[in-house]
């Protein structure tokens, strides 16, 4: 079983990589960074997936989600510090700003009802209310069996 200390280091590396590059590292990046074999780097990714610390594309070692970051383009984009991040949902779009510790950002998305483009602002550490709402459909207790890493 892989050492937990290494797993948390890998997790932190992945999140730092997202923050710096807006993208997910791949298994080769992780292997190089921690001087691991590809097999061990893959094992670390799967262990983190099993803990719900991140989520891999099925049957691969490709990171799909490390909440609030998405590794693929979505309708929830965050413009901050000269970069554009992809988020997984409405909550995660503001979550990206919060995770990066930023006071200013633009969230670009669409209205689910009309498809109308939305531009939402965080400015000077405050969200600017323009009437937009975020809707949570599923009760929280049904999101995961294990809520620890939501």
């Amino acid at each position, binding site marked *: 079983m892989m050492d937990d200390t290494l797993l948390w280091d890998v997790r932190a590396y992945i999140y*730092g990589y997202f923050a710096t590059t807006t993208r997910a590292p791949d298994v080769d990046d992780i292997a190089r960074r921690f001087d691991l074999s590809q097999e061990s780097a893959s094992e670390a990714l799967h262990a983190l997936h099993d803990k719900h610390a991140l989520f891999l594309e099925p049957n691969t070692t490709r990171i799909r989600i490390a909440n609030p970051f998405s590794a693929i383009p979505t309708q929830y984009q965050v413009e901050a510090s000269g970069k554009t991040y992809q988020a997984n949902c409405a909550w995660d779009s503001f*979550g990206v700003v919060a995770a990066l510790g930023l006071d200013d950002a633009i969230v670009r998305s669409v209205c689910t009802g009309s498809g109308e483009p939305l531009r939402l602002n965080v400015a000077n550490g405050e969200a600017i209310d323009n009437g937009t*709402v*975020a809707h949570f459909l599923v009760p929280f207790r049904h999101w995961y069996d294990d809520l620890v890493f939501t």
Partner: protein
Amino acid sequence: MRFFRSEEALRQWQAASSNTGGEALNLMQLWELSKRWYHNRLSRSYHGRTLAEIEGIFSAMNFTSDFWYVSRT
């Protein structure tokens, strides 16, 4: 979780799609929740959170409806 340009747009969508229920947050609430939930996500020391910590966040947000109940079973 999805965005709607207004509460009225949400109501129209719910009526048209039969997706009733759920909870809606304004942007100020969403931002506050996001800060509480994600402020330390990049930290090496973040290893997830306990159910009690989740309940603490929801309590601080004054989320008291059954929607936000975190089962301990």
